[in-house]
């Protein structure tokens, strides 16, 4: 503090210097944000669906895009119902697993990226449901209140038929674990899986 009273040198600075400084910082910041957002968007677009490839959706859009020999209205409707029931199945499944995914995330068993993916998937399915409402109206005005219970019924029927279909596969899998030659007198031990006891929820 006890500096000699030197004649203070005053360096003249243009008025534009601070403005230029702020401008440079702002532009750098904006460019960074733009690049970051673009990358994030790219990532989200490249995100693979959590579900295996669905045939129904593809079939419907392919049929709907056909112009020259326009597909029969009933065929288009059938494809639409199939697509709709798939979306409903996925929505139900996502809702069902939502608390479990949250638990997995809290537990540290999955990372944040996957958790966010899951939330995105829910959003995607919701938007698909919403767009489906519009499509229903385009088929026939006032069909919506009838169509959705129908779709639900299809979904549940499908679920039952899937379970019935997989019975044989399940039996074969089970036989593969326990030796097929079993039944020669020895009792099975309890360390093998208790397979039959599974009640799968709908």
């Amino acid at each position, binding site marked *: 503090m006890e500096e000699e009273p030197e004649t203070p040198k005053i360096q003249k600075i243009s008025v534009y210097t601070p403005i230029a400084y702020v401008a440079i910082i702002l532009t750098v910041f904006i460019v960074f944000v733009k690049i970051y957002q673009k990358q994030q968007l790219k990532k989200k677009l490249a995100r693979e669906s959590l579900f295996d490839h669905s045939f129904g959706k593809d079939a419907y859009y392919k049929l709907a895009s056909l112009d020259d020999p326009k597909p029969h209205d009933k065929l288009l409707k059938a494809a639409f119902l199939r697509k709709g029931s798939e979306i409903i199945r996925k929505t139900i499944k996502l809702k069902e697993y939502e608390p479990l995914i949250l638990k997995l995330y809290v537990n540290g068993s999955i990372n944040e990226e*996957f958790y966010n993916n899951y939330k995105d998937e829910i959003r995607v399915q919701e938007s698909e449901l919403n767009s489906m409402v519009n499509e229903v109206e385009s088929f026939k005005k006032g069909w919506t209140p009838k169509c959705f219970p129908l779709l639900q019924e299809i979904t549940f029927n499908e679920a039952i038929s899937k379970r019935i279909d997989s019975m044989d596969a399940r039996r074969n899998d089970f036989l593969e674990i*326990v030796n097929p030659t079993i039944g020669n007198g020895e009792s*099975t031990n309890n360390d093998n899986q208790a397979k039959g006891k599974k009640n*799968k929820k709908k």
Partner: protein
Amino acid sequence: MSSSQYTYDENSETWPYFALSLAALVVIPTTISSIRSIVKHNQSSKRELQKNAKKLDQIKNFSKPYNYDHLQSFNSKFNSKNLYFNLKNLFNLFGIFLIFFLIRYINFKLANTDSTTSGIFDPFEILGIDSKSTEKQIKSHYRKLSLKFHPDKVDKSNLSQDEINKIEQTFININNAYKALTDDVIKENLEKYGNPDGIISVSRGIALPKFLIESQGFLLLIFYFLLIGFIIPFLVTKWWSNVKSYTKKGIHSKTAELFVKKILNYEPLTLMSPKLLISWLSNAEEFKIMFNNRLAPSKIQSLIYSYLDRSISTDKTDELNKLKIVSKLPTLLNGLIDIGSIVRSTDMVVSSITILKSISQAVPILNTQKQQLLQLPNVNFESVKLSNVHTLGKLLSLPKDQQKITLGISDDAKLDSTIEFISKEYPILKLLKAYFAVPGESVVPPNASSHLIIKVLVKSPAHHGNPNTQNFPSSLLHEVETMDSLRDPYKSTKSQPELPTAHSPFFPGTRKSNYIALLLLQKDGKLADPASTYENLSLQNLELSLDEYKSSINALNDNNDLDKNNKLIVGTFKIPLTQPTPPKPGNYQFRIRIFHSDYFGCDLDFPVIMTVEEPKIEEQTDQYEIEDPDEDSLAGVMAQLRGEKVKKSANDSDSDSDSDSDLDSSLEEEEEDWSDINTDTEDEAEPETKPVSKK
């Protein structure tokens, strides 16, 4: 702002200290940790050696694992963590050298700096007198010294310039000291600031060596620029992406993602079989990283199966890859068990445990139920597959020639050591008692956090005689509740000895065995709680001879607790329930499955009923109730506004009477209050003593 207050460390006075403390901060902890790990390793290996001395005696009769050579080469390549010569120790050594160098440097510096100019100014010391000296003594001393050191009086002809300077400095010091002791102003300065000249200006130094700031700090600037601009962000992002890419359970986050996706897309009613899980596992990200995407999942799967079938291929790289894959599987399986526990899929967890056991013992999963025999040393797979025997107990009850045929062992010595091994190595669990407990309660109340206590008896397959739990002494079946157990109910399980490493000759690396306990709901067969693992259980009972076991078990079955012959130890599992007990009283059915992580045939499976009861209602139930607020108090006014009851204040009722009786009445009330509190404490003490006296 005067920047002149900040000076760089031009004389290299402080930066070595700074560097020294920084280096010590890093090097000392790392050195201690590596020394500790070496000591620990040596101790544990000694213990293992002692423990295994007996085992080695048996094992010498075992045939070598079919993949012995490959295991050896694998271990030497990947599993040999050299405790003494590794990167960490090299780093430590370098750090220690650096510290020594810095200490030497500091010493060197200290020796070369003038000690008279620095340090605390003590006039008594300079004058060489006692601090209690009178003014007269000071004066005479000063005169003597000033005569001796006066620059004009000293003969300078033989002295160098340095020495002359030194003498001059001494003379100044002596003068200062004298002044300090005689002049009032200087004396005050000395007392206040520790210096005769008054306040010394404080200088703040930056502990950086001079060479860094030479050339106008250009070097420093570049260094800072690189450090802040590139090195630190790079290290942080690298560390963070590493943290992010692995989950808490140690599996790659993409693998975890894959498992969850598979569960989401899993067709209902498909069997969550070991086969399905192995196909999931072979797609794990870990293997893609391990082999740089060069090994297809189907190839990985076939390698896993060929390991389990103990078939050997002529291709050496195949064998090495096989061991690499297998050594990674337990981590992945633990991740699967973790995820399966949370989605409550019993099948998934049980199948994962089955794979874990099969990996440990290198026995096939598919098309067989004879893993109990296949896991034994010296056996021939083909003859076991042909036989009708499935369990260890059955095998031991057979005559010797039958055993030979069943196991396919022709050599007598080999058979004996195999049988001996069975009786000493495989712990069979017998359930004694399982009950739910809530710390500090005699019953299981609703909405309480409880745990399941399981008492088991460990016995070898060779031991005959089962415990009769009806007659068993109850002191062995019940946990005694102490203050300690109330604080940490799981302490007693952890104080049991640790489980030994499992016999897994085919597995690359050692397998530390443990128990995995599952708690299932009987109503839907799903997991009620995540799987819990236990590493502590006493296996001492396996060492008992057949007669010892028999006499002990007979004594216990006759409720003869104090028998000196009793050498049996009862083991305990305590499964914590993460969820509170159900809110309604009633019976709730559970199924418990306890798995050994490595051996087949050592598991436990039994039902348990949780009886939820309301705790006994004490006589004065309202002891914890909140009293109605006083009329006068703020709470009372609020309550009145809400239309609730309030207590009439004592003053109000007796407002007419004089102050004396007022005091009396309040005293009376106080007395009543005291009696209330007295009964309270009795009531509180009751539930604590009750359960203890009961048991």
